[in-house]
Every structure is written in structure tokens, then in C-alpha cells.
């Protein structure tokens, strides 16, 4: 056995590094995939061997997903999971089953591609510069007009005042739509000075095709059991907590949150409360979330669910539902309006939701065109709250350090499934 074969033999028993492009309706499923032993979901495509396209994407996504595909170091394979044919880029296999099935498929393909039974995929795009190279020499030294114009084939950075009014260069970059620190599908054009975002613009995207109508969408038109609604709400919030914990670098607690999200039952608030205690011990508030992402007062937050309730306003559609009032429902609120307040708010709402689900019995609520979903008030025929959250990003992110920018976006809980910004990029 040659060295290569020996290495492959050792490597294929290890974790499979997977980069996931999350499409419509599959965010929750990806949380469950993370719990499977032997699958490791990585943050950068450079580290991955398997590209998993989970859920439906629009045809506009072909370009960006191809980029992600080509960035992978290889040997690479692509798997589609619940992604309709024809898929946005050529895939090795399509799986429509549950988490176990996709995990088995991923493992099998990883084995095969390492041992050579399956040929690794070739790049999809030609390897050319995004902008034509016009410098002289390997690094473009010595070209003319180097104190102005467009050396390097790209315009020189523009100057703009930094926080203390010193005029410095700005680096314009586009981050997303599959950057793991942002909600899937969100791309931002950011002008960076060092690690500070001086200007932010949401890039026009419409990449994610909405999955089948969820429980809360159905509750707009038909009365739905409170127990189901509240369980879904609790699961949503706990999975959101897992994402936040992962970005904050406490993967251990993120895994725990994912585990809890997979096995919650009505009335059982204990595991969630213990998780919140563990989060407190991890100093998350002190280290990362305190005073981050405070929204300016002039922004109208009404109807934005936990985001507005975290500023101390008891704005909740459930108060007006007789069924909820009968259960003695009273909205939880937190004060401060920073990322930590939103975290505590969602944690408390998850506990409250589990408690309500335990006591609700078979009572039904909503069905009259309005519903209080985990991310805020949904109205029949009106855009989801996520659209409003995306539209305020450009104001609230200006002047944030990179880490705060990511924390703020995460704390707003934006789901790009129902958001479409501007015209789709050509």
C-alpha cells in the first residue's frame, strides 16, 4: 500500500468536512445534521471536501454556488439534499430523505472520493481574474500613473473619514451570500477601514426559493393548535441560540442547544433553563453581546417580535388572542435593546413557549390573517418582518467593528427565505 493509499485509509475514517449552502426550508434540518457524529460542518469552503446544497435555491444562485464549489480544496463532491432537479450546479447525488440518510450518503461519497472510486469534481468556472490584470510584472510594479487611476485593473480605494475624522482609504468588499457568519442568502457590500464597516449596502439578491409553507404561514388562514405553534416557536428560538453560541465560539454549548432543540417536549422547560445558566457561566454577555447592536431610537420596531420586546415594549399579537389570554399569557420583555437583551428575550420566550405548549391542551388560535411568528408579526398579503430587518441593516451596521457587525446581524434573526432585495444580480 502506497503512502497516499495509507493516508486515504486513515483519513476516511475521520470526520467529513462539509460546507453547507442552506436553501429554503432546511435551516432546521442542518441543525440536526450537525449532531451526527463524524460530520463536521466547516465555516470556510477551503476546509471542506463535501458541498451540501440543502433546500431549494433559485436559478440566480448558480454563480455564487459555483464560486463556493470552486473554492473547495478538493477532492470535492457535491450532494443535493431536498433540492429540486435540475439543481443549480451539477451534483453527484440527490438525497430526499432524512438526516440519517444524507449523513450516510455524505460518508459514503467521502470514502469513495478518497479511495478513488469516485472521481473528484473539476472546477465549474474558468480560473481567470475577476478584473483584467493591467499591472507590470508579477505584482504589477512599475506601471504608469500609480498615484491615481486604476492600477491593478481596479480603481484605487476611495478615502473617507474614519471614526475620529482621519481620512483614510476604504476597502470595498462584498461578503456573502454564503458566508457562514451571515444568514444564508444575505450578501453585504461593505466599505471597510481596517476592521470597521464605514458603509454597508445590502446586495440585491434573490437566491433562496421559499420552502413549503410553514406552520406559522398556515396559521394566517386557519386556526392552529397553540401547542404546535408554541413548540415550533421554542424550537426556532433554541436553534437560533445554537447559531449565536457557535458564532460566539462556544461550540460546546451550541451542540447542546441543538440537542435540546431536537428533543423538547411540551411543558419541559428544565433543559432550556439549564442551558441558559450554562450560557451565563460562559460569560457570553460580558465577552461578546453587551452593548452590541443597540438599534437607534428613530427606527420603528413595532411588530418585530423579540427585537422590539427586547427594548422593553410588550408588543405581541398573542395578547389579543382569546385563547392565549385564557392561558394567562403575558409577554416577556427585557430592557436594553442590545444583543444580550435579544438573547435573553429569545431564551425566555423559548421557556415561555414550552410552558404554554404544556398547558394549552387542544385549543387553537389565530387564523384571522395575522399571526405572531418567532420573528415578529406576520400579516396576510404583507411582506414578512425579515424584509424590514434587512432594510434597517444599512443604518445600524455603520461604524461597527467586524465582529460586532456579525453579532448584530445574527441577533436580529433574519431569514432570507422570503426576502428579495432589489433586482436580482445578472
Amino acid at each position, binding site marked *: 500500500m502506497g503512502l497516499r493509499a495509507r493516508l486515504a485509509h486513515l483519513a476516511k475514517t475521520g470526520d467529513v468536512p462539509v460546507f453547507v449552502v442552506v436553501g429554503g426550508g432546511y435551516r432546521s434540518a442542518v441543525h440536526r445534521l450537525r449532531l451526527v457524529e463524524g460530520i463536521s460542518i466547516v465555516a470556510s469552503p477551503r476546509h471542506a471536501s463535501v458541498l451540501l446544497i440543502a433546500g431549494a435555491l433559485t436559478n440566480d444562485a448558480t454563480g455564487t454556488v459555483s464560486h463556493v464549489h470552486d473554492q473547495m480544496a478538493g477532492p470535492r463532491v457535491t450532494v443535493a439534499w431536498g433540492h429540486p432537479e435540475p439543481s443549480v450546479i451539477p451534483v453527484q447525488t440527490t438525497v430526499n430523505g432524512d438526516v440519517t440518510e444524507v449523513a450516510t450518503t455524505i460518508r459514503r461519497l467521502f470514502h469513495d472520493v478518497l479511495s478513488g472510486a469516485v472521481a473528484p469534481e473539476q472546477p465549474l468556472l474558468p480560473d481567470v481574474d475577476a478584473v483584467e490584470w493591467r*499591472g507590470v510584472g508579477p505584482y504589477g*510594479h*512599475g506601471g504608469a500613473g500609480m*498615484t491615481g487611476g486604476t492600477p*491593478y485593473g481596479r480603481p484605487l480605494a476611495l478615502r473617507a473619514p474614519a471614526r475620529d*475624522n482621519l481620512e483614510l*482609504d476604504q*476597502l470595498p468588499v462584498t461578503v456573502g451570500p454564503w458566508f457562514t457568519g451571515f444568514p444564508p442568502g444575505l450578501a453585504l457590500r461593505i466599505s471597510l477601514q481596517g476592521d470597521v464597516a464605514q458603509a454597508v449596502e445590502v446586495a440585491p439578491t434573490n437566491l433562496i426559493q421559499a420552502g413549503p409553507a410553514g406552520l406559522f404561514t398556515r396559521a394566517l388562514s386557519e386556526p392552529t393548535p397553540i401547542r404546535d405553534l408554541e413548540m415550533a416557536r421554542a424550537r426556532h428560538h433554541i436553534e437560533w441560540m445554537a447559531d449565536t453560541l457557535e458564532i460566539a465560539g462556544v461550540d460546546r454549548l451550541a451542540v447542546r442547544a441543538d440537542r435540546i432543540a431536537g428533543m423538547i417536549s411540551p411543558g419541559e422547560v428544565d433543559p432550556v433553563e439549564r442551558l441558559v445558566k450554562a450560557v451565563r457561566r460562559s460569560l457570553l454577555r460580558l465577552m461578546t453581546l453587551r452593548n452590541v447592536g443597540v438599534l437607534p431610537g428613530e427606527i420603528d420596531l413595532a411588530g418585530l417580535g423579540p427585537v422590539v420586546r427586547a427594548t422593553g415594549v410588550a408588543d405581541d399579537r398573542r395578547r389579543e388572542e382569546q385563547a392565549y389570554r385564557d392561558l394567562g399569557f403575558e409577554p416577556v420583555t427585557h430592557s436594553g435593546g442590545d444583543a444580550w437583551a435579544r438573547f435573553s428575550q429569545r431564551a425566555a420566550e423559548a421557556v415561555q413557549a414550552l410552558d404554554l405548549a404544556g398547558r394549552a391542551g387542544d385549543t387553537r388560535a389565530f387564523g384571522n390573517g395575522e399571526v405572531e411568528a418567532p420573528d415578529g408579526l406576520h400579516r396576510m398579503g404583507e411582506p414578512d418582518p425579515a424584509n424590514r430587518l434587512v432594510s434597517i441593516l444599512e443604518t445600524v451596521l455603520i461604524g461597527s467593528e467586524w465582529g460586532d457587525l456579525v453579532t448584530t446581524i445574527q441577533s436580529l434573526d433574519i431569514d432570507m427565505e422570503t426576502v428579495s432585495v432589489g433586482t436580482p444580480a445578472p
Partner: protein
Amino acid sequence: MNPGPLSYFLVSAFGIGAVVSGWLVFRTDSMLRAAYWLMVSFVAVGAMLIVLDAQFLGLILILMMSGEMTIMAIFMILFMMNPAGLNPMTMVHQHRTSIIAGVGSFIVLAFVGVVAEFPDRPVPAGNATVALGEELLGRSMLVFESAGVALLAVMIGAIAIAAKQGRFGDAFDGSEEPSIDVETGDRS
């Protein structure tokens, strides 16, 4: 003390390293490389100091320069016109005069160094670091303390100069855009 062949070899090697990396500081177009070539030059001189029995000073020099050169690199990225890294940048003036001055000062100094006779009183065997410590905190305490006070004064002064709100009011009052158009002015 008679330096052995190993010392000769090390001093020559580090010496060549220090000169070459010093030269490369002004030959590269990357700001990062310029700053770190300068650091390499300092590290080579630090290594020569270590060979010359000044262990402590050599190491302190290396220690200081790693931080200082990163600050240099960051300032270059801040103040030079293109932060994107490896972009073209040849920015020199009075080139010929500078070359003459540089070569001239090298020739004069090297000539003096080679021709002049210096007393031969080498460092005695023993711990030079201990001697330095006793000097610093004994006879020359005043010098040492003055250096400390000077550094403190500089820290305060530097912040005062660089801060937006200066001693004479806001830095923006009375400022004007530069009058010379560097894009077209060919003066090198």
C-alpha cells in the same frame, strides 16, 4: 579576547544579512515587506549583538522591533495610498543625490573604520548582563530614569499631537488642501 572562527563566520553572515535586508527595504513595493525587511535587518543586528557577548541587548532589540515594525506596517497601510497590499508603488525623489549621499557616507565611514586604529581592550569574560544591570541601577541611574521620563513625555506629547482636538483647537481649522498636483508633477 580572541574571537574564534565561528564568531567570524556568524558576524559575517549576519552582517551580510543585515545589509541585504536593509537594502531590500527600499527595493520592494509592498508596504508589509518593507516593514518586515527592516525588522529582519534589526534581527540580524540583534544576532550580531548576541555574538558580541551583549546577549541581553541583542534580545531586547529583537523584542522591541517585532512590535515596532508591525506598527510601522499598520501605519504604512494607513497612510500610503493603496491598502490593497502588493500594488505598485515607486515613490522616490532626488534619486541621484540620494544615491551619491548614501554611497559617499558608506565610503567615508568604512574608510575611517578600516584605516583608523582603535585600542584593543576587549570585554573581559564574565556576565555582561549583570554588569549592565548594575550600571543601570547604580552609577547611571539618572540616565536610565531620564530615558524613562523622556519616553513618558513622548507618549503624552504624541497623543496630544495626533489627537483631533489639539492644543490650538480643532485640527481642521485653517487647514487647506495641498497645492501641488502630485499626479502630474514628475520630479524624480
